């Protein structure tokens, strides 16, 4: 007789092998081959997540690891493409492949860009040292096998090295063409000392999208990240951000998600240099068949660092929101200022918010706070607005935007937060009445 634990592991191994059987290691050659092989053995050692994993207790991983992709109806967006108005350098991936025709030349002062698919042949020391490295670090204390899977099998992505202050954002656009497509992309960004860049992302990429972004922010460097996840109702996405921050560096990441049958966004941040700042925030809006999971792990391993996690979710018609957020303050990480808030606005009784906020602190001179709330529209405020002539739907939307405001405030750029606000308004507007 097998013990239940052994049997469980055997089932996970079986599911993992079934998934691996559908994939082939891309032949990108050179230094990448070894890193991919390493990652593959890590996947096998960990096994892909199973429904009994503690870290997946509120989000079912089956459809993210199944050999077959569940098809997702193509979505006909009635809004102009996101960030269209922004002066930016565009890099387009169509169906998971780099689309040279739709992309701009990789020419922008202060940075160099290489494609992952072509990088193996070139001797890129910095990328070789980083690719899969932050992902590997991010596997402890909690395993993230889908990120290792990505490192092994990513077909493409960008490797961006920032050496100066870059004047305009680099914008990654993920287009999608067929109903049952899959995309695995892996990006690496290294912002060298004193460098500064903004990375934008938008688009569905595929019916099932697995994406990893590794970011090293060196001393006194700044990295801004704003992304919108596609409004395709039936798409699935699992994404990981791994960031390592040096002294006096700044990392800010904001994600807005509207729709999507399943989204799991992991963000793993390590503050390794003193006086670093890391903000990660998100707004997720779901109506009906929507499951959105934000899982964040911030490690303070230096003195006088600040971290903020601000996550807001608007849920209606049975939508489900999940937040798992942790602040780990290591021994010696004195003067840590850690803040975490996760809130949901439930627009009806069918919707659900599940939250697990955690603090783990091994230093004595720190200020950490966290909070999680779940609530309905404030009836008193609603009546006040209505008594001034604002119809119920409009008043509800106004209060919903007010609820989201704290998260939106995390976007430093007024231009970008304005564009996102307009999209949020549009989403709410379409659901009136």
């Amino acid at each position: 007789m097998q013990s239940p634990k052994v049997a469980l592991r055997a089932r996970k191994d079986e599911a993992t092998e079934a998934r691996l059987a559908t994939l082939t290691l891309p032949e990108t050659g050179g230094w990448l081959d070894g890193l991919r092989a390493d990652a593959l053995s890590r996947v096998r050692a960990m096994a892909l997540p199973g429904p009994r994993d503690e870290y997946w207790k509120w989000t079912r991983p089956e459809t993210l690891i199944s050999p077959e992709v569940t098809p997702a109806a193509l979505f006909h967006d009635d809004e102009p493409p996101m960030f269209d108005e922004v002066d930016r350098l565009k890099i387009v991936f169509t169906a998971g492949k780099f689309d040279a025709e739709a992309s701009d030349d990789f020419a922008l002062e202060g940075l160099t860009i290489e494609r992952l698919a072509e990088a193996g042949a070139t001797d890129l020391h910095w990328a070789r040292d980083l690719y899969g490295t932050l992902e590997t670090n991010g596997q402890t204390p909690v395993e993230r096998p889908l990120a290792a899977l990505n490192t092994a099998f990513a077909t493409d992505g960008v490797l961006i090295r920032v050496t100066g202050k870059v004047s305009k954002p680099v914008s990654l656009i993920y287009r999608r063409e067929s109903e049952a497509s899959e995309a695995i992309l892996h990006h690496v960004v290294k912002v060298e000392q004193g460098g500064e860049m903004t990375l934008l992302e938008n688009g569905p990429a595929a019916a099932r999208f697995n994406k990893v972004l590794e970011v090293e922010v060196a001393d006194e460097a700044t990295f801004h990240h704003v992304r919108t996840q596609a409004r395709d109702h039936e798409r699935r996405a699992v994404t990981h951000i791994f960031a390592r921050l040096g002294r006096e560096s700044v990392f800010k990441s904001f994600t807005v998600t509207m729709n999507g049958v399943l989204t799991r966004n992991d963000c793993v941040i390590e503050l390794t240099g003193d006086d670093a700042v890391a903000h990660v925030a998100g707004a997720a809006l779901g109506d009906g068949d929507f499951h959105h999971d934000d899982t964040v792990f911030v490690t303070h391993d230096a003195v006088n660092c600040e971290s903020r996690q601000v996550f807001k979710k608007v849920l209606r018609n049975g939508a489900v929101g999940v937040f798992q957020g942790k602040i780990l303050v290591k021994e010696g990480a004195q003067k840590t200022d850690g803040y975490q808030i996760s809130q949901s606005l439930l627009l009806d009784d069918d919707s659900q918010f599940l939250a697990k906020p955690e603090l783990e602190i091994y230093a004595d001179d720190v200020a950490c706070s966290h909070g999680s709330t779940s609530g309905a529209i404030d009836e008193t405020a609603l009546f006040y607005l209505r008594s001034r002539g604002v119809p119920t739907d409009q008043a509800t939307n106004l209060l919903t935007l007010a609820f989201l405001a704290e998260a939106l405030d995390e976007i430093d750029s007024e231009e970008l937060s304005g564009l996102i606000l307009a999209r949020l308004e549009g989403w709410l507007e379409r659901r009136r009445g």
Partner: protein
Amino acid sequence: MLEIKNLHVKLEEEDKQILKGVNLTVEAGKVHAIMGPNGSGKSTLSYVLSGRDGYEVTEGSATLEGEDLLEAEPEERAAAGLFLAFQYPVEIPGVGNMTFLRTALNAQRKARGEDEISATDFLKLVREKAKTLKIDAEMLKRPVNVGFSGGEKKRNEILQMAVLEPKMCILDETDSGLDVDAMKLVSDGVNALRDEGRGFLVITHYQRLLDHIKPDVVHIMANGRIIKTGGPELALEVEKNGYADILAEEA
């Protein structure tokens, strides 16, 4: 303008009768005041008229310019010209005061089939009204009533009234929490709006406000009913002797 007939109201949640046959008519161009002991039902009357949830009208009617109020949604009543200055104005974090005002004004205009006000005209309008109420630009930028002092909240109510230009204004204890100067400002604000086409119902505990806003008629409310109606001298009598005599007279 406002006609309330034999209005009976109970709480929806419990079997508690609060208004027990209120009769009251406010004519256009007139200012009526309501005074009365705590808990007599003054705020309840104002909430029921503006359409707040939680109350059930068991008998009677209320009309604004002949149109039934009680069946209408709160926003429809507002668009029809009813305005309540709240006893406890509500704080709305995340919604800017200006956004709030513009949204309200445009929603009312839209409901009445009028065009939206342009951004510049709106700004001009609000600045002008705010100035007379000594509400500074910084306050206009803040979220609705958040971090406002008690008196600032009340002035903000009057600002909304001045911008929305309702036909029927109900002021629920707008004087409470105001210092002497603010009381004067608020009264001036109200007096500026006094007009042949506009009615006022001013709920207050103090004669002081009525020195500034001279009422045409004063009502005393007790135990869910208007028990006495008179001229301005009735307020003076209350100020001097309290409610004991009037209540005794009624009993």
